[in-house]
């Protein structure tokens, strides 16, 4: 059952297209990962879907929440959806919380907006949420300010705030990037525990393939404003099909086993103002052929729930295709 369906989502900043038609579905209770390097459009996708981009951004396409179109919906509708149906947490929790407001006030705001609570009920529920996300001494800490907490605790508070509206989907944008490794593990565990209890769906946006692999059922790899590959998490990391996806995984040093030279991807991410013709990854791709410069390859669906945008897709994902073509020839 699809919860959110993004169809052909495009974003332009000052006439420069940074998102080139994203198609993405998130099912109820599902955990979807969005992986890509900086500038790939993974955060922009969800900021655009929730109408959180600055006014100069031009957004096109459709975003449906349980079938109802929410892109360009009136502000009142969007305000009920944001935080109420779809909550979002961000990379740097210390600056994502308002420095001059108490934690109680910031969590209470969500409770008042989405659950209609007030007064003592807000305090009781805010305390319960802080307990839930593992902030010790919640009663007393409610009147503290963000700077009185550590980075990991601030991210827990962000999560508590996100949970305040009982959302169906949590969009976590690089939630652990600013945190130390041991704290990162705590936060990922917390998110997993909460999902187990509430059945909330998750979109995890991260540049770290390891983080996504451990947390998500399905992963989309993004490059230069497009999804280039989508596959179940286990499949993607064992057998990446798109040359960029396999390049990313090869570029990751291993923590065990024999040490191998990293297979770096040559070159750099293209400037969105000057994308190469055809496939945006073409100039960095080891397998590029003349066909790659013709047109951007479409994201094509294959049998086992995989999608891939590459001229080589059918050879990678349907090995029989080669045989068939040889026979035809």
């Amino acid at each position: 059952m699809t919860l959110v369906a993004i169809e052909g989502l495009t974003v332009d900043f000052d006439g420069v297209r940074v998102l080139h038609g994203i198609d993405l579905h998130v099912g109820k209770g599902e955990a979807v990962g969005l992986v890509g390097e900086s500038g790939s459009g993974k955060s922009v996708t969800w900021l655009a879907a929730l109408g959180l981009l600055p006014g100069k951004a031009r957004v096109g396409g459709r975003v449906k929440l349980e079938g109802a179109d929410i892109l360009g919906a009136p502000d009142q509708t969007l305000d009920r959806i944001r935080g109420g149906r779809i909550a979002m947490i961000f990379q740097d929790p210390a600056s994502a919380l308002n420095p001059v407001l108490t934690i109680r006030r910031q969590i209470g705001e969500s409770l008042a907006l989405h659950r209609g609570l007030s007064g003592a009920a807000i305090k009781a529920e805010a305390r319960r949420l802080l307990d839930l996300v593992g902030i010790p001494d919640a009663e007393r800490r409610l009147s503290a300010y963000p700077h009185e907490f550590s980075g990991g605790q601030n991210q827990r508070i962000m999560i508590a705030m996100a949970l305040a509206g009982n959302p169906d989907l949590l969009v976590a944008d690089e939630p652990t990037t600013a945190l130390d490794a041991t704290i990162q593990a705590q936060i990922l565990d917390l998110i997993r525990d909460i999902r187990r209890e509430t059945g909330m769906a998750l979109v995890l946006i991260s540049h770290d393939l390891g983080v996504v692999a451990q947390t998500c059922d399905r992963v989309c790899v993004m490059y230069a404003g497009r999804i280039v590959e989508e596959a179940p998490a286990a499949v993607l990391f064992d057998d990446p099909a798109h040359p960029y996806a396999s390049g990313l995984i090869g570029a990751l040093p291993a923590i065990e086993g024999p040490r191998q030279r990293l297979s770096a991807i040559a070159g750099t991410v293209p400037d969105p103002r000057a994308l190469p013709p055809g496939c945006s990854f073409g100039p960095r791709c080891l397998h590029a052929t003349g066909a790659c410069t013709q047109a951007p390859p479409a994201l094509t669906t294959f049998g086992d729930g995989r999608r891939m945008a590459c001229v080589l897709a059918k050879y990678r994902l349907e090995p029989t295709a080669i045989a068939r073509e040889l026979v035809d020839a």
Partner: protein
Amino acid sequence: MSATTPLVEVEAIARRYTMKKGVFGAPIEVRAVDGVSFSIRRGETLGIVGESGSGKSTTGRMVLGLEMPDAGTVRFDGAAIPPIGGAEWRRQRARMQMIFQDPLAALDRRLPIAAQVREPLDIHLIGNEAEREARVVELLRDVGLSADHGRRYPHELSGGQRQRAVLARALATRPDFLVCDEPVSALDVSIQAQVVNQLIDIQAALGLAMLFISHDLRVVRQVSRRVGVMYLGRIVEEGDADDLFATPVHPYTRALVSAAPHPGRKPTERIVLTGDPPNPADRPSGCAFHPRCAFAVARCRVESPVLADLGAGRQVACHLASPAGAGGVPTGPKLPALEVA
């Protein structure tokens, strides 16, 4: 000098600050680095991993002589580091170089890259005009940049290219020793791999001794032969990079290794530490790790463990670690539940 004598010898260095807790509090002593010792031979890379507050960056700065240790000694090529700022210090600085996390901060925005790579040659009066020109081109090529890149300004380069430019400049004086503090942490994965490969190649080609400091275990393992794990200003475990990450002994190293996310590893294998990263201003008694340690016993709360050689090239600071048996590896503390897992 024989190849077996260490180029860099660090003995029990410490760095303390006094810090006021809040605006009105009484000053308290913060031990950022608390008795760290190691040595690095020519052509060898020592990796230092640790989280924020572990003192790894301060250690790097003391080794370079940018900060003077409050206790202990740093010896470079058999001699103590001369006082900061003197002619002797400047001469020695040509032999030891560093690169940091943010290349944009390390570069001058108003000068083209080539001019900045050339700067150390001018400062240390290396070669004549023509030789310096040629050396700059050679240096840029060594780090994978073209002469065209050399004509550009820092903001016209990508993050990875900037870090290469910093590396080229660091290599200009043909140093013997390079300190890298989080050199690839700000870079995207694909670019990170380019720079890591470059560092490894250059280190091997030039026979550099290297101190590689990072929070990223995977990158440290990729680059280093030996690795030290720091926690609250001390090295808690040191050993061969492959062995250490394969069979971590100290409970902190074990948690750190298990927390490193990697595709293909099941999250259930993870040891999740409770509590926040430690605050150097509020150092626990005894073993600094005991409040977060699942194995801690009474002794850990009162007695600070020393870094002891457990055989098989491993040193561990843990009361509960056991030395390696014949041909085996040292082992850390055990809990029945964990053995089942």
